[in-house]
């Protein structure tokens, strides 16, 4: 019989209220992200040419010690549950064509590797950039003859998380030379710096001018998107990028545009570029 000594730690996702941690001192925490003691994640990198900041810093550095630790252990990371669910969907046949994602794309760890680091991509037929969610929907309609996912359907978030996770650790790099990507980048930049809402705030006010400071109890990051979809402890669920965009815009007390609208897609192109060089962290863990 085994003699047992017992010690237990309960990690309920209530770290948002936990006190202490270096992060309270303000500014990004001085720390290194290594997932499972194996995979080094680039969380600080010199900004690309034309970037308004000197250094691009992942939102990971702005979270508490406990939240950062969750992301460093792929077993503890609750987002990995959604990666597993996404893998099930990947292999599940749906639609009139009798196909699953795997029927055409095979092993995702090969076929999807690097893909999440390079989206949104220009789509010639649609005449606009597509992000991973819309690319999935396009595939579902055209190739699987299945219903496209509604915005933020549980399966859409899990599958997007699974696909983006295949690029874990790879640097974000957008190709702005495709189609009219540059024009969308310009439009996204305009959205980023445009003040909106009753509070009259632009994305840049928090994430460029005041990152590292506190807005009430919230430690402002640079608003980089390399970890999306992100597991947010506040929601105890995956949060998609366009959901987060809308949440931020709502907080400025403005009317928020529809998910995947031209405005938010342009913003996605622009802010993805702002995260150039950071590793994909999906599924990142945030407050």
């Amino acid at each position, binding site marked *: 019989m085994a003699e047992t000594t017992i010690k237990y730690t*309960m990690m309920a996702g*209530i770290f948002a209220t936990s006190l202490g941690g270096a992060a309270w001192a303000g500014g990004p925490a001085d720390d290194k992200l290594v997932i499972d003691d194996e995979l080094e994640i680039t969380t600080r990198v010199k900004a690309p040419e034309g970037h308004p900041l000197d250094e691009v810093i992942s939102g990971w550095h702005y979270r508490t010690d406990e939240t950062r630790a969750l992301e460093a252990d792929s*077993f503890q990371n609750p987002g990995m549950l959604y990666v597993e669910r996404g893998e099930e969907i990947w292999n599940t046949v749906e639609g009139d064509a009798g196909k699953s994602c795997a029927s055409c794309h095979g092993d995702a760890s090969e076929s999807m590797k690097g893909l999440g680091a390079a989206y949104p991509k220009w789509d010639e037929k649609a005449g606009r950039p597509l992000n991973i969610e819309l690319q999935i929907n396009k595939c579902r309609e055209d190739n699987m003859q299945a219903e496209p996912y509604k915005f933020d359907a549980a399966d859409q978030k899990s599958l997007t998380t699974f696909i983006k996770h295949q690029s874990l650790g790879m640097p974000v790099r957008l190709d702005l030379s495709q189609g009219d990507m540059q024009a969308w980048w310009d439009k996204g930049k305009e959205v980023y710096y445009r003040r909106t809402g009753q509070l009259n705030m632009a994305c840049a006010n928090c994430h460029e001018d005041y990152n590292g400071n506190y807005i009430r109890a919230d430690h402002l990051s640079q608003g980089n998107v390399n970890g999306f979809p992100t597991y947010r402890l506040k929601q105890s669920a995956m949060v998609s990028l366009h959901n987060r965009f809308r949440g931020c815009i709502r907080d400025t007390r403005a009317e928020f545009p529809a998910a995947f609208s031209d405005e938010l897609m342009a913003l996605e192109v622009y802010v993805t570029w702002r995260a150039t060089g950071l590793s994909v962290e999906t599924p990142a863990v945030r407050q």
Partner: protein
Amino acid sequence: MAAPKPRVKVPKKASKGEVITIKTLISHPMESGQRKDKKTGELIPRQIINKFTCEFNGQVVFTCDMDPAVSANPYLEFNAKIEDSGTFKFTWVDDNGSVYTTEKKLTVE
């Protein structure tokens, strides 16, 4: 989310007398029973994992009750001192009567 799925991390091998760390995680919404449906205003009924047990060769190693303040996807970590080879059995009990179990073998060398 789909049906709750347990995940457990236990080393496959240990030396006699070694203290090992066991990590467990289960996907579960842990609906507290205090939230209201935004559309109807009705209370969403409580549904949580209310009990967790870990047994080794039939002997209880660790057990705990859980309450509604525990957030979604509960993670538990605890240690066990190993003297013999055997099988860990993990059990989660849901408010709706469902029981989720998984087992892991460990060899002493």
